[in-house]
């Protein structure tokens, strides 16, 4: 099976590799895994709480080329989108953009799961912040 040029490009020059401070209430972290192949993917978004727009997105993936490319592409797409727009990203969009073959579709599913998990984490943090008095709990270190 050959990887498409876009997969190779993302694999060789992954965008937005790295991490954002996990303890920041404006940062949402999604950590997901595909047990069949042993892949693990971390995707983070930094949201402007006033506008709901994703200012920054980072990822780190330990897995195959398609998993890396899927998450790299996802972070590219996430930047500048609102949280709601981000939730509309479907794994099939990633499959089409990267021309993933059927055996690698689960990599795109993983990326979609990671986006959803990151945003769910962000929302949970925002809720907790609203609910708790200021300074009620210490910020965990990143």
């Amino acid at each position, binding site marked *: 099976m050959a990887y498409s040029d876009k997969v190779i490009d993302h694999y060789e020059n992954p965008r937005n590799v790295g991490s954002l401070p996990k303890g920041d209430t404006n940062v949402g972290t999604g*950590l997901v*895994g595909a*047990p*069949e192949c042993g892949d693990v993917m*971390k995707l983070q978004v930094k949201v402007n709480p006033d506008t709901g727009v994703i200012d920054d997105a980072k990822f780190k993936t330990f897995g195959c080329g398609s998993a890396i490319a899927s998450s790299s592409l996802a972070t590219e797409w996430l930047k500048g989108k609102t949280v709601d727009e981000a939730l509309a990203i479907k794994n099939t969009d990633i499959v089409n953009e990267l021309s993933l073959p*059927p*055996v690698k579709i689960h990599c795109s599913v993983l990326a979609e799961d990671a986006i959803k998990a990151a945003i769910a984490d962000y929302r949970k943090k925002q809720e907790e912040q609203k609910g708790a008095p200021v300074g009620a709990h210490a910020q965990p270190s990143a």
Partner: protein
Amino acid sequence: MRLWELLWSVTPDPIPVRSVSTLECRNCGAGAPVDEHFCPQCDRILALGRYGDYFSFFGLPRRLGIDRQDLEQRFRDLSRRFHPDFFYNAPPAERLASLERSSYLNDAYRVLRDPAARIEHLLAIEGLPPVKHEGGDPSTSSGQGVKVPPALLEEVFALNEELDDIRELRESGGDRAQIAARLARARTPIERKRDEHEQCIQELSEQWDRQDGAPPAERRATLDALREQLLERTYINNLLAAVDREAASLGNL
């Protein structure tokens, strides 16, 4: 029919199960239980009438504790009895049956002597979804309903990151002795995890073997727990492979 034509027609298709409860001897027409290899009446080799259960093919109960020597002995006995050389002058149907049974026997032996493959086979014939699946439907979730425990993902991620840091250090020409020491430290928790995993598999296997007459729900719970362990296995094996790769790269400096 030539031998290679017979061989060509033997397709290894171990699972899914084709269930046939009895066989019929093509020679004398007598019925035989599905686990028989030879006709109880005329002693001719029976066509391979069913696929699926490697345990019963060996005359073994569906238990995970298998004595390797006993298994090997059964394998040797059956290999000898099915051997195509003994059917050289037999009618084509019997020659084919000997090839089918020999081929199936090899598959069954390969699976049953490997403890992890044995568990996967047990899960399959007990009707659980496969641990590994290739490709699949884009609408299905990656974990096929089994979520990896978040704590495991955190741990696996952290161990992978440490290995990544070590690799970067090596590639940027860091001190070899220091990198080797750090790699040794990274290896310890992974190996401990592997040992705990093996221990857990062992305990669950013994539990399964004691549950012959237990309620279905209890048996199912054991199988589910075994399946979860097999999911963890890929992560552990990948980490161990990454450690070994790094150690090899370091050795080549």
